C-alpha cells in the first residue's frame, strides 16, 4: 500500500520546509515578474523571464497554499503562509504584472463556480451541463444595470410606452398580488394532504399569472422610469454595486428554482441534456434579446464599485490607477470565496447536506426516510446557482469593457464540470484545487508553451501554441486514469473506490462497483424498477 510511506512522511513536522518554500517561491515570483530586475540578472533573468518558467513559478507559488493545507505543520505557519501569499506577495507581484490579478480573479471565479457545481453534482448527484447559465444571469444583471445599456432600455420603453402605462402597472400589481396570494393559499390548504389534480392545475395557473403579473409590473416600472434614461447614460451609480451583489445571488437562485422546477423530476443523463439545452437557451437569448443585452455586440462598458480608501491605499502602494479596479476585485473575490467555502462547509455538515448525499446514493430510500426529493434538489440547484450568480457579477465588473454571449458557451459549463471531477467530486479543497489547476493550465501554463516556443523553429502544425486542447486533453485523461477519485478526493468516495482495488484486484470488475449505486437502482426490489417508480419518486406537487 502506498498510503503507509505517505503517512510516515506526513507525520513529520513540515513547518520549516513550508516556510522556506513559501519564502523562496515568493521571492522568485516577485523577481520573475519584475522586468527591470530581470534585465539586471542576465542569463538567469532571461530564464526567469521565459513565459513557461514564469507560468511554472506562478504555479509553484500557488502550490504553497496547497502545501500549507496538506502538510502537517504548526497551525500558525499555515495561516502565515496563506495570508502572506494571498494578501502580500500576490498583490505585490501583480503590481508589476497585472495579468496575475487577472489570473487570480479568474481562479477565484472558477473556484466559486466549481464549488457551486460541486453542490449540485458532487453532493446531490444532479448532473448539470448548463451551469454557466446562472453565471450569465449574474453577469448580465450587472452588465445591464451597471452600464449604459439600462439607459438604452429605458429610452426604448419611453418611446414605446404602450397606451396606458398606469393601467399596465395596476393590472400587473393586482395580478401579482392575487396570484401570489392564491398560490400561498393553495399551498397552505393542501399542506400534508395529497395534491389533487385540481389543486395542482390551479397552482400551475396561478404561477403563470404570477409571472405575467411580474412581467407587466416590471414593464410598467421601466416605462415610468424612462425619463431617467438621460441620467443613466453610463449605468447606475457605482454605489449600487453592493446592492446588486446581493441581488445577483438572489436572481440566480430564483433562476435556479425556475429552471429546476420543471427539470428536476428527470433523472441522470436526461437531466444532463436538458440542463445543457437550457444553458444554450440562455446564451442564445442573450445573443438575441438585443434590446436588453445588446446581443452579440456586447454591453457598453461596465462599472465596478469604487472604494475610495482602497484606491488610496493602492495608490500609496504604488499601483497605477488602471489597476485599482482589479486590486479591489481581487480582494473582493478573496472575501467572497472565503464566504462561499464557509457556506459550503456548513451546508455539507448539516441536515440538508446529508439529505443531498442521501438522494445521490439512493433516491427511493431517501424518500422513504422522509426526504422531500423535489424541495431538496431545488435547494441544491438554487444554492449552486447563487454562487454562480455572484461570480457572474464579479466577472462582468472585471471584464469592464464589455460582456458578450461568447463568454457563456457550453464549453464553460463543461470546463467547470471537469474542474469538479478533476479535483475530486464532493471534496471542497478538491474542487478548489481542480479549479485552480484547470484555470492555471488554460490561462497561464498552456498559452506559455506557445509563447515560450514562439521563436523556435517548430513547424506550424505541431506548434504547441496550437495544441493546447490536445495537451489539456492529455492532462485530463491521464489525471483521471491515475487518480479517478480526483486530485484531493472526498473521503467517502476514496474509500469506495479503493476497496477491492489493490494488487490483486478482482479478475473482471470488482464486486462492489456493481453492488454500488447504479446497479442498485436497477436491481431494485421487484417493482421498484417499474415505470410507476418514475412517476412517483419524482414527487408530484
Amino acid at each position: 500500500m502506498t498510503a503507509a510511506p505517505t503517512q510516515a512522511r506526513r507525520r513529520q513536522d513540515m513547518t520549516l520546509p513550508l516556510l522556506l518554500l513559501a519564502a523562496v517561491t515568493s521571492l522568485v515570483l516577485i523577481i520573475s515578474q519584475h522586468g527591470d530586475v530581470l534585465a539586471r540578472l542576465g542569463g538567469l533573468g532571461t530564464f526567469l523571464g521565459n513565459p513557461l518558467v514564469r507560468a511554472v513559478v506562478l504555479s509553484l507559488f500557488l502550490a504553497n497554499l496547497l502545501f500549507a493545507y496538506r502538510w502537517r505543520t504548526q497551525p500558525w505557519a499555515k495561516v502565515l503562509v496563506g495570508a502572506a501569499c494571498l494578501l502580500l506577495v500576490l498583490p505585490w507581484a501583480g503590481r508589476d504584472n497585472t495579468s496575475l490579478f487577472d489570473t487570480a480573479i479568474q481562479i477565484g471565479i472558477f473556484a466559486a463556480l466549481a464549488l457551486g457545481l460541486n453542490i449540485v453534482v458532487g453532493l446531490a448527484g444532479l448532473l448539470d451541463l448548463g451551469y454557466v447559465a446562472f453565471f450569465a444571469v449574474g453577469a448580465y444583471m450587472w452588465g445591464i444595470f451597471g452600464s449604459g445599456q439600462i439607459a438604452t432600455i429605458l429610452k426604448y420603453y419611453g418611446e414605446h410606452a404602450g397606451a396606458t402605462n398606469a393601467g399596465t402597472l395596476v393590472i400587473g400589481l393586482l395580478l401579482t398580488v392575487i396570484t401570489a396570494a392564491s398560490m400561498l393559499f393553495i399551498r397552505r390548504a393542501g399542506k400534508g394532504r395529497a395534491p389533487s389534480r385540481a389543486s395542482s392545475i390551479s397552482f400551475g395557473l396561478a404561477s403563470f399569472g404570477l409571472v405575467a403579473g411580474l412581467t407587466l409590473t416590471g414593464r410598467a416600472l421601466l416605462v415610468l422610469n424612462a425619463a431617467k434614461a438621460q441620467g443613466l447614460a453610463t449605468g447606475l451609480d457605482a454605489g449600487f454595486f453592493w446592492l446588486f451583489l446581493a441581488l445577483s445571488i438572489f436572481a440566480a437562485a430564483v433562476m435556479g428554482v425556475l429552471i429546476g422546477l420543471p427539470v428536476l423530476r428527470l433523472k441522470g443523463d436526461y437531466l444532463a441534456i436538458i440542463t445543457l439545452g437550457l444553458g444554450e437557451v440562455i446564451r442564445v437569448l442573450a445573443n438575441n434579446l438585443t434590446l436588453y443585452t445588446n446581443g452579440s455586440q456586447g454591453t457598453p462598458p461596465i462599472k465596478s464599485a469604487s472604494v475610495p480608501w482602497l484606491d488610496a491605499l493602492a495608490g500609496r502602494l504604488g499601483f497605477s490607477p488602471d489597476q485599482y479596479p482589479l486590486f479591489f476585485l481581487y480582494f473582493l473575490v478573496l472575501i467572497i470565496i472565503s464566504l462561499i467555502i464557509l457556506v459550503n462547509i456548513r451546508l455539507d455538515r448539516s441536515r440538508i447536506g446529508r439529505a443531498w448525499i442521501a438522494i445521490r446514493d439512493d433516491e427511493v430510500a431517501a424518500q422513504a426516510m422522509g426526504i422531500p426529493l423535489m424541495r431538496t434538489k431545488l435547494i441544491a440547484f438554487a444554492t449552486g446557482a447563487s454562487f454562480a450568480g455572484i461570480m457572474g457579477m464579479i466577472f462582468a465588473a472585471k471584464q469592464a469593457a464589455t460582456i458578450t454571449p461568447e463568454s457563456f458557451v457550453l464549453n464553460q459549463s463543461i470546463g467547470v464540470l471537469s474542474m469538479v471531477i478533476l479535483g475530486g467530486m464532493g471534496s471542497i479543497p478538491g474542487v478548489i484545487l481542480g479549479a485552480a489547476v484547470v484555470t492555471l493550465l488554460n490561462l497561464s501554463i498552456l498559452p506559455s508553451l506557445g509563447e515560450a516556443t514562439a521563436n523556435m523553429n517548430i513547424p506550424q502544425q505541431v506548434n504547441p501554441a496550437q495544441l493546447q486542447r490536445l495537451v489539456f486533453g492529455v492532462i485530463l485523461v491521464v489525471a483521471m486514469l491515475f487518480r479517478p477519485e480526483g486530485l484531493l478526493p472526498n473521503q467517502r468516495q476514496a474509500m469506495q473506490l479503493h476497496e477491492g482495488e489493490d494488487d490483486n484486484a478482482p479478475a473482471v470488475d470488482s464486486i462492489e462497483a456493481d453492488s454500488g449505486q447504479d446497479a442498485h437502482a436497477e436491481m431494485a426490489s421487484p417493482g421498484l424498477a417499474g415505470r410507476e417508480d418514475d412517476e412517483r419518486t419524482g414527487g408530484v406537487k
Partner: protein
Amino acid sequence: MLELKNVQTYYGHIHALKGISMVVPEGEIVALIGGNGAGKTTTLRTVSGMIKARSGEVLLRGRNINGLSPNAIMQMGMSHVPEGRRIFPQLSVLENLEIGAYTITDRKVVAERIEEGFALFPRLAERQKQMGGTLSGGEQQMLAIARALMVDPKLLLLDEPSMGLSPKFVEVIFDIIEKLNRERSTTILLVEQNASMALAVAKHAYVLQTGELRLSGFAADIARDESVRKAYLGEE
C-alpha cells in the same frame, strides 16, 4: 472436482477469507454454512472468479483457475447462482434464460432447456415476457436458479437458494437439488442459512466462521454437533 488450497481473499483491506482449504468431490453435494459475514459468499465468488484470491489455489478438475475471468471459468462447466439473485432487470424472463444458455450455440438444446426450466417453475412460464426487474423477490430467485441450470452444469454453486422463497418452494428447491445430484450427478456446493435442510441433503459440510474453517466432515455429523446446533440452528 473442486479443491481450495489455503485460499486468502481480500476486499480492499478487509480480510474476508483467511486461508480456506476444502474439497468438493465429484458428484456430491457439499454444504457450506456459517454465520453472517463468515465468508460463504466470498468463497463462492472466489471459486467462480468474481473476485481473485490473493494467495492459495482454486483447483477445478486439478487445474488452477484462480485469476481466470468468470466467463472463462463458466465455460468449464460451472454455474453460479449468486447472492442477491442478480437477474438482468431489463431483460424479459425468457431472455434471462437465453442469456443463461449463452455458451450453448445449439438452438434446439437451448429451447429444450428452457422448456425444462419452465417445467420446474411454472410461474416463470406464465411470465415469459415480463421484465426480470419487475418480478417479485421469490420469482427472481426461481429465475436465477432456472438460469443457472440452462447450461446443465457439472458443478453448481448455490448461494442461499432458498432465500425469499415461500416454505412450499423451499421444499421444491431442495427437491430439485437432490434430483439434479441424483439424476445428472451434478456436483453442488451449497451455501444455506437454512442449515438444517442443507445438512440434510448434503454429504459433506464445512462450517465457516469469520473467514476461517471451523469444522468439516460428514454433514450428518455436523448436524449433530452441539456447537453447530447452538450457533447456526438456533437451538439453545
